[in-house]
């Protein structure tokens, strides 16, 4: 096993543990992320597999294939996070608006 393989395996293992600890009750997500991490293990241990896959998909090098897939995943995660931020912002706005209006409407109610 080469040095980089050890580093990657340790990191992947940490991600796996972290996911299971954090997402205890969300079985679907644990399953999905575990599948991702496991395929990561396989690809790190047998890097030649990526070349076979890449050639099947018409991509020249295995690394390129991994790079393309990571880019897609990266964008997916960004969009997911952005929706979450938007939702939070809307929630915050609603709370602050309620607070802002509360004082004035109390004044309205007592003539």
């Amino acid at each position, binding site marked *: 096993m080469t040095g980089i393989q050890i580093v990657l395996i340790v990191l992947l293992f940490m991600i796996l543990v972290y996911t299971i600890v954090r997402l205890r009750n969300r079985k679907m997500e644990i399953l999905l992320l575990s599948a991702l991490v496991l395929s990561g293990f396989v690809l790190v241990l047998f890097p030649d597999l990526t070349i076979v896959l890449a050639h099947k998909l018409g991509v020249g090098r295995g690394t390129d294939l991994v790079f393309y897939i990571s880019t897609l995943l990266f964008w997916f995660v960004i969009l997911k996070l952005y929706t979450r931020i938007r939702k939070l912002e809307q929630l915050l706005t609603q709370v602050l608006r309620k607070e802002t*209006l509360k004082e004035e409407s109390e004044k309205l109610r007592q003539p």
Partner: protein
Amino acid sequence: MVTEAVYIILPVYNESPVVLQQVVDELLERDYKLIVVDDGSSERIDKVLRGKAVTLLRHPVNLGQGAALQTGFEYARQLQARYVVTFDADGQHTPDSIEKLLEPILKGSADIVLGSRFLPGASHNAPMFRRLLFRLAHLVNAMLVRLPVSDSHNGLRALNAKALASICLTENRMAHATEILLQIKSNRLRYAEVPVQIRYSSYARKKGQSAADSIKVFFDLVLHKLFE
């Protein structure tokens, strides 16, 4: 002439006290009811408004003009307002435009009236670069909204109770201007455009949006389309 109360919603953020005072006085002279929404200005504006017959609502933090307008709308709804006008606090709008803006609503031919700088009879002294930005915004709106309006980013608007009840802004920042158009469409509100006078002082120009802001608005819009 309007017999019922007309509520003016004035979103304010870090406005110069002199300009704000002038705008407020001009509006009060004409017997409009004023709802000032302070969008978390760093300095309190209570002092500027002391002794004036206005309602002051204050966001604890800065949320954006869209959020300020929506707060004003919701307050006006609580008051069961029948006529509401949105007005910019930087002095670029003339109070004389309000009567004209209300005309289609009073006649019953529109639920919401949009002020326009570009219709015949309107006037504005926008600098060249700003005009270019307007053109660009117009194009983007034509693509995203498909509502034939000549001026989508004009802060002067009049709403009747029906429009007030159906418009609900979720875009906190400047993308709300387009969101209003989208909601006019989805709620099937009858709309009209009226030419208005805009006076760009150097102050209004400085307070207004820059080219970089319009890029932000554009992204907000694309994401709005994606997620809503």
